[in-house]
């Protein structure tokens, strides 16, 4: 395995091949906000909150650090002006799907928003349907990859995409498991289960 040298926020980092920028940054204690990332699961890149700026020569690009592999001689900025601007926009879009999140403590999504100075009034300018699901896919991927039950999945495409429990499997498997409940960044998941309970 070849060692790769890169620079994150001005700090020289030695990483291994097949590591992502996010993992390399975590190794030296740089905190990049993430919502859809989980150690047990394959990187997914859905929330785009982990966006960082990479600089190669004169050019710079915005990439999702949780899926971007490290490269030799890469210069990474995790909190540059451009990154913060786009992260704010992303957080506003996410907040628009979860109205009233400001009142609730202990939610990562809320804490990130407050960290970057988002207010609910700002988020209201986006007319997104408040579904309380940000489609991070944590529950779906956890069920498929860790538990291998496929009791929960996505349905629909594009703006109609949503998370559903498949009653035939979920009624059997979910009552004894419920491991995906604490993963949900908005806490709506337990209610979905109640919806499919047999009459």
């Amino acid at each position, binding site marked *: 395995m070849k060692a790769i040298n890169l620079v994150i926020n001005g700090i020289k980092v030695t990483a291994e091949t097949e590591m992502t920028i996010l993992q390399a940054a975590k190794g030296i204690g740089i905190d990049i906000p993430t919502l859809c990332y989980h150690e047990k699961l394959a990187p997914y890149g859905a929330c785009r909150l982990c966006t960082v700026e990479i600089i190669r020569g004169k050019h710079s690009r915005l990439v999702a650090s949780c899926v971007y592999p490290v490269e030799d001689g890469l210069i990474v900025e995790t909190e540059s002006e451009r990154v913060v601007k786009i992260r704010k926009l992303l957080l506003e879009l996410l907040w628009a799907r979860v*109205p*009233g*999140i*400001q*009142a*609730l*403590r*202990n939610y990562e999504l809320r804490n990130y928003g407050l960290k970057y100075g988002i207010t609910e009034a700002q988020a209201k300018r986006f007319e997104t349907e*408040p*579904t*309380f699901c940000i489609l991070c896919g944590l529950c779906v991927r956890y069920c498929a990859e860790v538990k291998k039950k496929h009791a929960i999945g996505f*349905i629909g495409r594009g703006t109609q995409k*949503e998370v*559903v429990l*498949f*009653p035939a499997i979920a009624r059997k498997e979910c009552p004894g498991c419920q491991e995906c409940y604490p993963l949900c960044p908005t*806490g*709506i998941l*337990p*209610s*979905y289960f*109640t*919806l*499919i*309970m047999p*009459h």
Partner: protein
Amino acid sequence: MKYGYEPKILGFLCNWCAYAGADLAGVSRYQYPPNIRVIRVMCSGRVDPVFVFRAFLKGADGVFIGGCWLGECHYVTEGNYKALEMTNLCKKLLSQIGLNPERLRIEWVSASEGIRFAEIMTKFTHQLKELGPLGISEGKDLGRLRQDLEAVERYVRENKDLISDYITKRQEALTKKGQSWWWSYWK
């Protein structure tokens, strides 16, 4: 300690379904533990987070909320979805102060399900008996427990507008989901 301990349960029953179900259980003479004290509400959506925490403050070991089945609320506002979201929120708050969230329970009982009501009450009472008295079984100091409960009660009372707005929005989202085309197809 566990021997001879009778848990106190406060029940909020919806006038149209759960209360009628409890009534039917009584009329049909089904046996179930007498630990529940019932408060009748017109709809389970009437139950406020403040009620729940005040019940725990006044010495209830468990709180039970009974409503109509989802999609069968007798009001167009679909109050039982609201009760469901309220319960989830309260469970979260309960576990934050170190209490077992199982002490709060929501169940759907229709007016014809007297047996089901009796079964649920038996199970819930049994579960609370296993858990033991409020606070002691969770290893909490009673003075501290009181303080924490008062703090949470104050929090939900002072942020009433925010919380009710939040619950209503979630209820709308859930109602929409519960009424989408594929949902009825699967059910």
